């Protein structure tokens, strides 16, 4: 074990949903499975109701960084001295930052995000993921939203980013296609389309920008959202930095449409 290597532990659900073993195997110099008592990085399942409490505990016990996998609710507060990052299926895709840089030059009038999901997916986790994707791609958090259409198989949300731009989020539940999310930003003379496959197979996102010069595909990145999340956490830990993920998560949660 080298000095820079960080040890990782995960609860069972986080390990499964966040593919933690695969991530460790693909970052063998940076990460290693934890052997008590040395546990530096922790993965918590965000689908657990008590994950904020457990976060406080692991921080108190000396964790150097935490990944929260697919949260379904925000934390009221988080540790302020260690980085806590959120592992989203789509918003954590490594292609998102490049797409966001390109999108910032488009001046898009409308941001659309459409997801294909299987019926079993937890809706709240998916919506928080899609709102995070909207925030990261649009460079502005979602300020408000409302459900305009809803059925067992379809959900349409009309929202607005904090900078005033309109947002459209759709979720279609079908087994016809593999799960994934697509984003489109349409500007006055340019546009961006991006497809983000679910991370199970590490299929790369495809990001295409079209402007007056033609259309350009951004370089493909064959890395899962999970691995990109852990690289980010690793870098934050080594740099002594923190993250705004929990505050962003709380803001996204507050912007979700009212529900019964």
């Amino acid at each position: 074990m080298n000095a820079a290597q960080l040890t990782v532990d995960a609860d069972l659900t986080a390990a499964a949903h966040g593919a933690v073993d695969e991530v460790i195997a693909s970052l063998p110099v940076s990460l290693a499975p934890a052997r008590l008592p040395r546990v530096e990085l922790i993965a918590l399942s965000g689908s657990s109701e008590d994950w904020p409490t457990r976060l406080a505990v692991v921080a108190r016990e000396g964790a150097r960084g935490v990944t929260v996998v697919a949260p379904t609710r925000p934390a009221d507060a988080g540790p302020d001295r260690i980085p806590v990052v959120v592992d989203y299926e789509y918003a954590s895709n490594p292609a998102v930052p490049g797409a966001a840089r390109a999108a910032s030059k488009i001046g898009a009038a409308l941001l659309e995000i459409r997801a294909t999901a299987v019926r079993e997916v937890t809706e709240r986790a998916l919506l928080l993921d899609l709102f995070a994707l909207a925030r990261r791609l649009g460079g502005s958090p979602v300020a408000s939203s409302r459900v305009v259409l809803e059925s067992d198989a379809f959900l349409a949300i009309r929202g607005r980013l904090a900078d005033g731009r309109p947002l459209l989020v759709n979720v279609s539940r079908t087994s016809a296609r593999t799960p994934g999310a697509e984003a489109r930003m349409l500007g006055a003379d340019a546009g961006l389309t991006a497809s983000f496959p679910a991370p199970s197979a590490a299929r790369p996102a495809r990001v295409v920008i079209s402007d007056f010069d033609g259309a350009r595909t951004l370089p493909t990145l064959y890395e899962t959202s999970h691995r990109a999340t852990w690289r980010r956490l690793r870098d934050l830990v080594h740099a002594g930095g923190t993250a705004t993920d929990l505050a962003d998560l709380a803001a996204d949660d507050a912007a979700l449409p009212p529900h019964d």
Partner: protein
Amino acid sequence: MTPTTQHPIRVGILGAGPVAQAIHLPTLSRLGEDFRVTRVMDVDAAVAESVAGRVGAAWTTDVQELLEDPAVDVVAVCSPHPFHAAQVIAAMRAGKRAVLCEKPFAVSGDEAREIAEAAAETGVPIVVGAMHAYDHGWLAVSEQPFAPTSIRSSIVLPPNPRFEDFATEVLARPAMPGRNPHDPEVAAAAVSGGVMGLAIHDLPLIREALSWGDPDAWRKVRVVGAEPLAPFGYLIHLEAGGVPIELHATMSENWNPDWRLTVTGADQEIGVEFTPSYVQAGSGTGRRFASGRITEFTPADFNGYEGEWRHFADIVRGGEQRIPTAELIDDLVFALEIAEQAADTARAALAAAA
């Protein structure tokens, strides 16, 4: 289609604006064995003469003169929307063999009923120029119906002149009026016009897909959201018989067109990526996602406009009208209902925000 050993069908065109110039004349030029344009009418004499001159036809500024011309077998109505119904009825009553009318072929339910009565009385077949209903991509994917759980029509286009200029050299292009997007009446007109001018390309297909799950679903339309999109477009959410539907269109200076219709079901999905209007770029490409397979249908070498004219030739020569007139009326009623509800919704939303 029927092999052509007969004389070409003689076509009279009512309204010689960009649609006739950039869509129908270039299409008919590809079907020279089947059709010959013999008369062109436009209220602008210079336009009528010039457009007629391109195809060696006679010209007039008078509708009746064209309808009474014995050298005109069939009529193509390409005039502005408000004139469609009256001209379709007049052509039927003038004893023409068939009428092709640009969509929409009426702008009210009353007009639709008058057309239905005239059609029943005269027996003259009608084809409405809803080119996507004749597009090979749609015909391929719609062969295996299933109950839809959601439907989406998304149209992203540059302004029409980009494509018109590939198809022809347009004379007398109408100017686009300036608009105040904050005026509720302007918003209402924008979404209503968007439905009748753009969404209407796909609404007959959507109505057909709805019928796969429930034949009466299209009669139970409820628009729940409608707004204009800048610089030109609309975003409309509705449901019909419990099936959510999204209609979206934007027209901007972005050159990259993206016109798709998607019908999703519990375990299958079909979609068509259509070629833009005006240009000759073949048919749309249809795809079916089902049972772990993606099936892509080879596009045809001709687009939906040519498809509708080919079908028109079949009808004139005794073939069966693929879309009966009663269905065309229902298509129109469906579109008008959505346009009206969308206008009311957009107007109310903007008035409430003011």
